[in-house]
Structures are given as C-alpha cells and as structure tokens.
C-alpha cells in the first residue's frame, strides 16, 4: 500500500490585517488577515520547518528522498532540497530535487514521490513546499498572497491515507507569469482566466482522477482545492457537484493564498480532521492541474501531528503596512557583509546545519558544538558525534536593543536542549514581554545574515509549539 505517512504545516507567527494594506493604498479590503514571514524567513525555512515537524511526527522513520517545491526558492542555482535534507539530517544517499516555477509543483512532487516508492531502499519520501510570493505593492494580489510551508511524507508502512488515483494535465495558459528578471508576477486575473485557466483544467483533472478511482464526486469526504482567488474554488466545486461541507476551507481569512505550499497546507488540514474510510481529494492548478485521490486508513486514529495547526496561531501582528513591507524588503537590500568561506561551511556543516554535538561516554555530558575535549570531565578519548534534540528550555536570555535589527529588540537566549547540550541563539516569534527563563522553546532554522553572495542560515528558537 502506497500513501501518506505523515503531514505538517508551517504557518508563520506573523500576520498583517488586510484592512491595514487597504488603508495604506486606499483600496477596498476583502477582510481577514494573511500570514507573513518575519524578516529572517523564506520559502526554504518555512518548508524546512514543516519537513522537520513532519519527520518528528513519524517516530524516526527512514527517509531516502526529499523533494522541495516553490516558486520563490531562495536559490536559483544551489539545490534547495539538499540544504533542507541537511537540516533534516537525512543521509547522503537521500534523493533530492527542487521543483520550481509551478504553483502545482507540490502536487507534481507528490506524484513523483509516490512513484519513487518501492524502487528505492524501502524508505519514505518527503515532499515539502514553501512559498513567499511577493506581489507588487498596491496590487490586488498583495491582498491575497500569504506565506506558508507544508510537508507530506509518503511511504508504504503505517500509511494513514492510501493513494487511489492520480491525474494530471498541462495547459500553457497565461494567467500569472513571472519571468527570470521580474520581482513580481504579471497577473492576467479576469473572469476569463478564472474559467478557462483554472476551472476547466481543474475540473478535467479531478474528474479524470475520480473516474480512475471509480468514485463519484458525492463520495468525496473532503476536497482540498487550491484557488487563484478568494472564491473561484467554490465555482469549481459547483461544477463538480460538490456540496459546501465537502470543500476544505482554503484558510483565506487567516493565512491567504500560499502558492505552491497551498495544496499541501489544505491536504494537511483535511487530514487533520479525517476519519478512517474518508475519501480525500487534493488538486492544484498552475498551467494545468494535478489531482490525487486518497482513502484514509485506520492508522489515522493513531497518528498525531507534531505541531497541529491549532498550535500555530498568528502570535504577532505587524502593526502597520510599512512594518509588513519592511520585513519583506529587509533581505532584499541587506548585505551584512558576512563572508563565510566554503571551507568553514563544509567543515562545520554537521554542527551548524545538522545540529550535531558531542556526547562523552565517560560522564554522559552532551555538548554543542562538536568538541574534542569534554566540557564537563575534560577527557577527550570517548566523545562521539550525536544529533542533538531540537527543543529545550530557556536557561537565560537577553533583550538587546543594541544589536542591529530591523525590529529591535533582539532576544538572545541560552537554551538547554532536551537530553543535554546548550546552544546560544536568537529567540524569535516572541514578544519581548513573553520571554521567560524556563520557557519551553523549539529550535527553528532561519536566515540570520547575508554577505559574500550567500544567504546565511542558522538555528534560532521560538516559543514551544508542541502538544
């Protein structure tokens, strides 16, 4: 049996009210809020967090493939999936690939991942997606686009939703285009685009997949349908004969349209409330459409998300449109001049990216980073490299107004990791008044500086999101 074995969603902790955007541009507001990145996040970090959370919910299951889909990947040449695989501390023989330029990249990746199963070492394959699409300031799309990451793991053991059928069609339709030299999309949004560029291919792919599965639309428990706007998916549903309660809410009021992450975000949301026997349909558009049909298994009863969506509310709201823009512009204009040689990067990848440390077999002390002499018993003959836990508690912290930041103060924390090891890193997604000694935190991979033609990433921590 092939199918889904794990799922996770990463919703940014920051949000902006659409009324704030409307106020800035003197345009009508569709209401609600959209999730948006802090200045130190991008599509890679969103996807990496979702990928880690997905793995954490799978009890150390073996993974030998990782696919990353995004239209806003930070690197055009440098395999983003390889960096995410390293963050997830996956073995070198893990298959990695990026899928860019398509809003349905994640569903294409999902099909690819499912087809990879069986032929490899019997491991699971992880599909993750993240998008931080930046619409032209003042445009209609700016109101719609939200940022998010998501991950779906597929495999053949402990399947929670069995794959029944897939269908795909392509169509070089011009609805949203971003060329290599464009910062923002050129949108051809219209009634025509919604009908001919979205409803038609989606309807075709979905009906084809349902037909292959031998199912009628009425049998679908939840349809996770991406949408190019606030309501075109409802038009599509009507065409398909789906009732309102069969449609997965697209999270427009809380999150927004999250690009290539959207089908996985909605699929995860549908799985979060699924019961054994449910039929779940996921479909995504973008120069054609992909549709996949799954049947939920008994294993869903046992499955627990590592970080449920309910534990990811918008904790901090950008107080104004300008603040929201500033967060997005920061890394576009900031070169902090930090040059890191590829020698140092290669030498320290295990500690700085994989979060490895050392454990002393004499005294049992775990420590970070990888070390040659034990910090506790000072012997050096029994140290072995280990992966450290990615959660812990704040031992002490500082609220630093001096450190240069687009949004001071910078909270810096000394974190004692669960099971041992101590790390010093920024505490993010946390109001200064919330920071406390003893508070539980999760480690999260984020951008911290730029320079020498590179984005630099490292670990930070955020208020604990677990159950």
């Amino acid at each position: 049996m092939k199918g889904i074995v794990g799922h996770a969603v990463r919703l940014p902790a920051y949000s902006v009210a659409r009324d704030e955007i409307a106020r800035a541009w003197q345009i009508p507001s569709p209401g609600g809020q959209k999730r948006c990145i802090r200045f130190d996040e991008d599509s890679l970090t969103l996807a990496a967090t979702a990928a880690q959370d997905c793995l954490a919910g799978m009890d150390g299951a073996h993974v030998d493939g990782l696919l990353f889909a995004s239209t806003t990947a930070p690197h055009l040449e440098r395999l983003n999936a390889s960096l995410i695989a390293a963050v997830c501390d996956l073995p070198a023989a893990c298959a990695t690939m990026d899928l860019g330029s398509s809003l349905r990249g994640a569903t294409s990746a999902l099909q690819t991942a499912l087809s990879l199963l069986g032929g490899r070492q019997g491991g699971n394959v992880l599909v993750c997606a993240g998008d931080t699409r930046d619409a032209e300031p003042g445009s209609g799309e700016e109101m719609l686009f939200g940022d998010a990451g998501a991950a779906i793991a597929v495999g053949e053991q402990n399947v929670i939703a069995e794959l029944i059928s897939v269908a795909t069609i392509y169509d070089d339709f011009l609805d949203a285009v971003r060329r290599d030299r464009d910062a923002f999309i050129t949108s051809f949004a219209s009634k025509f685009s919604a009908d001919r560029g979205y409803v038609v291919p989606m309807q075709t792919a979905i009906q084809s997949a349902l037909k292959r599965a031998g199912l009628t639309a009425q049998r679908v428990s939840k349809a996770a349908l991406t949408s190019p706007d606030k309501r075109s998916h409802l038009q599509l549903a009507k065409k398909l004969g789906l009732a309102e309660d069969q449609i997965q809410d697209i999270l427009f009021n809380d999150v927004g349209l999250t690009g290539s992450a959207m089908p996985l975000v909605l699929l995860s949301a549908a799985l979060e409330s699924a019961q054994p026997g449910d039929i779940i349909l996921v479909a995504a558009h973008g120069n054609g459409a992909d549709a996949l049909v799954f049947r939920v298994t008994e294993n869903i009863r046992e499955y627990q998300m590592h970080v449920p969506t309910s534990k990811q509310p918008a904790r901090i709201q950008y107080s104004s449109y300008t603040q929201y823009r500033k967060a997005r512009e920061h890394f576009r204009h900031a070169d902090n001049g930090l040059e890191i040689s590829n020698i140092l990067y290669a030498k320290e990848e295990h500690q700085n990216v994989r979060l490895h440390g050392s454990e002393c077999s004499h005294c049992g002390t775990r420590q970070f980073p990888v070390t040659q002499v034990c910090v506790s018993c000072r012997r050096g003959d029994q140290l072995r490299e280990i992966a450290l836990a990615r959660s812990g508690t704040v031992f002490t912290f500082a609220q630093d107004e001096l450190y240069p930041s687009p949004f001071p103060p910078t909270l810096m924390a000394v974190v004692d990791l669960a099971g041992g090891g101590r790390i010093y890193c920024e505490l993010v997604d946390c109001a200064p008044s919330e920071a406390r000694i003893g508070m539980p935190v999760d480690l999260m991979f984020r951008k911290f500086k730029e320079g020498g033609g590179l984005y630099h990433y490292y670990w930070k921590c955020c208020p604990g999101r677990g159950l």
Partner: protein
Amino acid sequence: MTRSLAHEVAVIGVSCTKFGENFDQSLQEMMVEAGTGACQDAGISVDDVQAAWLGTFSPGFGGGKATITLSDALKMRGRPITRVENYCATGTDAFRNAAAAIAAGKYEIVMVVGAEKLRDRAVRGLQREGIHPYLESGSTAPGLFALSANRYMHTFGTDRRVLAKVAVKNHANGALNPKAHFQTKVTEEQVLNAQVIAYPFGLYDCCPTTDGAAAAILCRADLASKFRKELILVRGSGLAVMSGKPFLDPTVDYLGFPSTTAAAQQAYQEAGISDPIKQVDFCEVHDCFTWTEITNYEDLGFCKKGEGARFIEEGRSSLTGDVPFNPSGGLKSFGHPVGATGVRMIYEIVTQLRGEAGARQVKDAEVGLAHNLGGPGAVACVVILGRES
C-alpha cells in the same frame, strides 16, 4: 610551588591621559603622553626603559596588531616590546607580564603602556573581531552580560534599583576626578528611566566607549629608592582564563564569574591575604555594567554569593565605606578604552597609595586591588599593590 613575586617589584612611575572622546589626539599621541608622563613621574628617560609591554585590544590604523605601534610612537627602538591582548583584561595582564619579567631578574626597569582609541571608528561601540559567524551570531557586549544579569536577578530576586546604585556611586566618584570621561553625578531615577540598551541595562548601566592611555614604570624593588621616596610594591597577581563561549557550556551557572574568583585566589595567596575585607583597603574593579560590580563583590570574596546587593545598599563600597570600590569612578564614569583600562587602574591605585588622589582620596589607603574582566567572564586578572611603610 610557584615562586612568589611579592615584594620583588616596585611601581615607580605612573601616568594617565584624560579619558574621554579625545578627538584631537591619535592613539600614538596618547601613548606618547602616557609613556613620557610615566617616565617623568619616575624620574627616568625613555632610554632607561629596558623592555616594554603594550596592552591594546584593537590598535587600529597604522600600527596593525604589532608592537610597532608603541615603538613608532615613542621611537623606542632596539629593545623588546611585547604586545598583550586578552580581551578587556588586556591592561592588567600586560602589567602582570611586565612584573613577572622584573621578578624573574631579566630586567631592572620596564614600561607598561595600555592604550585604546575607540572613538575614531566608523561604527560606534566596541569592534568585535574574530567571533564565530554562527555560534556567536547576535551577540553584543551588553547582551552577553545581560544573560548573566538576568539569570542572577532571577535567582536572587535582585531589583534594577540595586544596579542603579552602582551607577550613582561611580558617577559620584567620577565627578571628583578631573581625568574621568564623565564628571557628572546621576540620580537613581535618571538611571532607572534611561533608554534600555539590553535589559536590565539602561544607558547609565553601561560603561561608555572611550579613548585613553595609561602607563606605568616598574623596577626591581631593591632599586626603587633611587627613583622615589615612597615604596609601592606588587604584592600579588593572578590571571584566570575560562570559556569565551560560556553560553555553550552546560556547566556554567551564570550567577557570577569563576574567572574572577580563580584570579583573586592566585593573587591573595601570593599576597598572603586570607580575609580580603580586612586586608584590602580599596578596589578598582571592572564595572563594565553595573551588575558586574555587584558580582565582583562576591566573586572577589568581599561578601557571599547573592549578598552583593546588600553590600552596596549598606554603603560598604562607597568612597567612605569600609572598602571603597572604584574611587576613580570606575569604567562606568572614568571610561573604558579596553587595553588602557587595566593600566589606568594601576595608575589610580598608585595615586591613592601615594595619598595624591585629592577629593576622591581613600582614607588610610595601604593595600589596593585592581580587577579586570575580559569577555563574558572569559578572562579575569587581579593585581594587588601595597605601600611599604
């Protein structure tokens, strides 16, 4: 057993520039002023100096990292010069090395110069060099000390008001010192209401970035009477190095600085001090931030851990208390040009022991202690000087 250098080394000359924003003086000019000043104080010429130690953290333009900074300033040619850099403990460590060389019998007269020019940099504040791009990213000096202060205050229930008392005391002392960077008194309310730099530290809880230089002339104790009528001897010294990254060390409790305790133990043993509060008359300590002085009381053994707040609240460290701390005004008020600070402390202690400190004179000053702390408790240096009667 290590050989004690107590009673073998005398300080026969000291000098110090005005500390502050010395916009009209270069690093070299400050070195010349301090270096020749110390020679004049000792009644010698620069040519009499057989070897020199230069303490500087970031020598900056023209001098690079090397000893030539001092050679080119004083045209001190053809003799050994050693540069010492040990974080903010640079100045006292340069002094400690010079004293050890005299005690070893290698030289008869040597010079120590500490100098720093922090206010001609393009970026404000202390330039931090050589930090790890990942492991230490996000750190600043106030932020690193705030990690300790927050944990300490959380553990002992200390109030910010106690920290403010350090600023009030040291500003009051600095107001009596014509060479201090700041010579103005501040009130507790001013300190508490100032802009926050890194909580719990507001602006007045932090020492300033300062330019300055200081110098001392050391000679063999048995020759000192040729130069000065009073005899001021090095009674003991100690240096202790801990981790530069305490935030990665799970054994660190963040309640104080074990480096200070270890350095003090070395110095006390050499000086024959078993009860510092009775045997030390005054201290010049490293108050880079107000809380640092509180933990210094404890780490140096003047009170127990956790009792530093009471120590200042009872006025024991004030100019008229039983052990005045920082009669000069301290780093807080006198300023903190990194490499110069430790040598400036020696200047203050010698001035006090000679009874020449004017309005800030400590009564019956016979034994003085200098304490330098470098990095986030990474390095501490303690030097004890005494007047022989």
